[in-house]
C-alpha cells in the first residue's frame, strides 16, 4: 500500500522522485487497460471531477476528460467564457460554488501562475494543475518523461534539449524539474529574447546556437512559438526563426546525427519549429506522447482520489 506524498498535483517541483515512479508504475497498468476491448474500469465510479478551464485547451482537456471517463468518474466541464467569472466572481468563490455541489476533485487550467497554489490553500479537495500561465504543466512533463522512458529506458545521464519559446512555456519548466529528478541533463535553446533570465540557476545551460546544441543532445523537445502570448516582437520574422531554430532532416544530417528522439508537446506548427517530414519520422514519439497522456492522467487521478485518509 503506497500513496503520493501530496494531496494535490500543483507542480512537479513539489513532488518527489518516488511519487514520479509510483505514477509511472500505475500508468503502466492503465496503459494496458486502455488497450483492452473494453477500455474502462470502475475505480472512480463514486467520484465527481470538475474540469475548470479558465483558458482555452483542446488536447489537455480532451485527454483529462477521457482519463476521467475511463475511470468511470462523473465529469462536469466548466469554461471561463460561459461562466460568472465574466460577472466578476473571484476564483475561490467560483470553485467553492462548484464544490458545494459535492464535487470531489478539480482539474484546473488558469492563465495566472500560482492560481492553483492559492486555490489549494482555500478549498478542501484535491486540485490537479492542467497548466497555470507560464509556470507549470505537471501532467505534460510526466507524460513526456514516461514516453521517453518507454523509448530509451532509464533517463539517467540522458542529454535532453528543449528548443523554442522557453519564456512563455509552462511545459519547459515542468519538464526541467521532472527530467532533472529522473537524473537527466537538460539544456535549453532558442533566441536570447525567448529564454527567461534565471534559467542557469536551475542548473540548465542555455545554448543559443541550435546546430551545436543538436550535436550535444540525445533527445530534442521542440516547443511551439506561442504567438498568442507574445505581447511584443521577440524576433524579426517567423521565417528567420525557422531558418535558425527549425528542425529538419537536412539539419540533422548536416550536424552528423544518425539517431535522435524527437518530441513535441503539441499543437505542432508544421514548417515552423519542425518540418512535416521530421514530425512523422521514425525519430518522432509525438503520437506516443498523446497516447500516454491518457494513461498518465488516469494514474494521477487514481492515486490522488484513492487515499481515503486525505478525503
Amino acid at each position, binding site marked *: *500500500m503506497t500513496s503520493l506524498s501530496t494531496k494535490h498535483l500543483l507542480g512537479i517541483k513539489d513532488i518527489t522522485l518516488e511519487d514520479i515512479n509510483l505514477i509511472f508504475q*500505475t500508468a503502466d497498468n492503465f496503459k494496458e*487497460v486502455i488497450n483492452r476491448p*473494453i477500455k*474502462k474500469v*470502475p475505480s472512480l465510479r463514486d467520484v465527481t471531477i470538475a474540469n475548470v478551464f479558465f483558458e482555452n485547451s483542446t488536447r489537455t482537456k480532451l485527454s483529462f476528460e477521457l482519463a476521467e471517463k475511463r475511470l468511470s468518474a462523473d465529469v462536469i466541464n466548466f469554461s471561463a467564457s460561459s461562466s460568472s467569472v465574466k460577472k466578476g466572481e473571484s476564483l475561490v468563490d467560483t470553485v467553492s460554488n462548484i464544490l458545494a455541489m459535492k464535487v470531489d476533485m478539480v482539474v484546473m487550467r488558469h492563465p495566472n501562475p500560482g492560481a492553483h497554489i492559492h486555490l489549494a490553500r482555500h478549498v478542501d479537495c484535491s486540485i490537479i494543475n492542467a497548466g497555470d500561465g507560464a509556470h507549470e504543466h505537471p501532467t505534460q512533463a510526466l507524460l513526456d518523461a514516461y514516453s521517453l522512458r518507454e523509448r530509451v529506458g532509464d533517463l539517467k545521464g540522458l542529454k535532453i534539449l528543449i528548443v523554442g519559446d522557453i519564456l512563455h512555456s509552462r511545459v519547459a519548466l515542468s519538464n526541467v524539474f521532472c527530467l532533472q529528478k529522473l537524473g537527466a541533463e537538460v539544456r535549453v535553446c532558442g533566441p536570447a529574447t525567448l529564454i527567461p533570465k534565471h534559467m542557469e540557476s536551475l542548473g540548465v545551460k542555455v545554448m543559443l546556437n541550435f546546430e551545436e546544441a543538436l550535436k550535444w543532445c540525445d533527445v530534442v523537445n521542440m516547443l511551439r512559438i506561442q504567438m498568442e502570448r507574445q505581447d511584443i516582437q521577440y524576433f524579426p520574422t517567423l521565417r528567420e526563426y525557422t531558418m535558425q531554430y527549425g528542425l529538419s532532416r537536412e539539419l540533422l544530417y548536416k550536424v552528423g546525427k544518425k539517431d535522435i528522439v524527437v518530441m513535441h508537446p503539441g499543437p505542432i506548427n508544421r514548417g515552423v519549429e519542425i518540418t512535416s517530414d521530421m514530425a512523422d519520422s521514425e525519430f518522432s514519439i509525438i503520437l506516443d506522447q498523446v497516447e500516454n497522456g491518457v494513461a498518465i492522467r488516469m494514474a494521477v487521478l487514481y492515486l490522488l482520489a484513492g487515499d*481515503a485518509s486525505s478525503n
Partner: protein
Amino acid sequence: MDIRTLLDHTALSQTLDRLAYQIYERHLDFEDVALVSLQPRGVELGRRVHERLKKLSGEEMIHHGELDITFYRDDFRRRDGVLVPAKTNLDFSIEGKEIVLIDDVLFTGRTVRSGLDALLDFGRPANVELLVLIDRRYSRELPVQPDYTGRTVDVVKDERVQVEWSENDKNNRVTLFSEQND
C-alpha cells in the same frame, strides 16, 4: 501468536494433484478451457495447477492468464492509502471459453466478485468456474461458492490463513495464524 499447519508440503502437493484431476475430469477437451489466476496470490497456485494439468492431459497448449482486480475493488476510497495494481496478462480471447478462475483463499467473496467484473470486461466466456485452495466457511459476505476446493476450514474472524510457496517448491505449506488478544 498461535500457528497451526493446515496443509504441510506433502498434503498440499496431493491436494494440487487432486484439483488438477478434478478439472481434467470435468473438461476432458482442453481446447476451449482457460485458467485465469487472480493477482497477486492466485498466481503461484494457478501456475502449479496449470503445470499439473498440462502433464495430465498431455496438452501442451492450455491457456493460462493472470488477472489484476485492483481497479475493480469495492473498497477504493474506503481505506487508507492506495493499492498499487499488479500486471494483467491475458494474451488470449476469453470469448466463448470455459474459464476456471483461481485464487488461494476464499473468504468474504469480494475478491471473486471483483474478479468476475474484471474478467467480463474482456469478453463473454461460455462459463466460469471457481477454484480455491482454501475455503473459509461461514465468512462469506457475498453469495459466492467454489466449484473446486482444496480444503474447507472453519475459522473465526481474527484468524488468518496464509499460503506460502517456497522458491524451489520443496517447502510449500498452508498455515493458520490466530492473533491472541492480550
